[in-house]
């Protein structure tokens, strides 16, 4: 029962991490709850994830929002607003 969480670009560098597995529990049922958990780590986590303007979330490679539910095996990606093209 785990999520695979990926970090890209500025977030990857700020958090010093490209990927981690996070064990699921009843308090991690939505994207909002996962973000709350990550911010709880303090330091760069709190800072980087402070404002919704600073990052985007995708669940299973599709853009997600705070209400998006999470389940075992989901791939959650956190990344800055995109700048391709």
């Amino acid at each position, binding site marked *: 029962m785990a999520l695979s969480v990926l970090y890209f670009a*500025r977030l990857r560098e700020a958090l010093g991490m490209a990927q981690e597995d996070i064990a699921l529990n009843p308090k991690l049922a939505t994207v909002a709850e996962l973000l709350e958990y990550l911010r709880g780590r303090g330091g760069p986590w709190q800072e980087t994830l402070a404002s919704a303007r600073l990052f985007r979330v995708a669940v299973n490679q*599709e853009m997600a929002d705070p209400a998006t539910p999470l389940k075992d095996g989901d791939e959650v990606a956190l*990344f800055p*607003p*995109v*700048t*391709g093209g």
Partner: protein
Amino acid sequence: MTVRIQEADFDLSQEIANLRQARPQIGAIAAFIGLVRDVNAGEAVSELTLEHYPAMTQKALEAIVAEVKQRWQLDDALVIHRIGRLLPTDQIVLVAVASSHRGAAFQACEFIMDFLKTQAPFWKKEQTPAGAHWVEARDSDALSAARWSDKK
């Protein structure tokens, strides 16, 4: 409908020829080419690195192309986006849309670019005299994409 993510450069004439191949009914092609500028936000840029989220990029671009196919009558559409290390004047992206009608081709091409700029997981890092930094997303891109929810 073709979506390609690649490190290699592309040749415009060749890509348009492939898009048109065996379709003599095509009357109009609208295309957009994005290039690495040697200056951005007033700073000299010596190099650009394009990172992306491989599992999602193709999927996101295909979803955008599927959307334009539904909104407009098109013969075909092509999106090529480069990743990795690029230099000023290098080509970054090609979007080309073929249709019988030029209005549909222009609109679909601009729609793809607007949503690529806001939905496709690419990130640019610039090398400047002051060091390397990630490019900031622009509000104008979000506004450009938002236009399409008001009109067909």
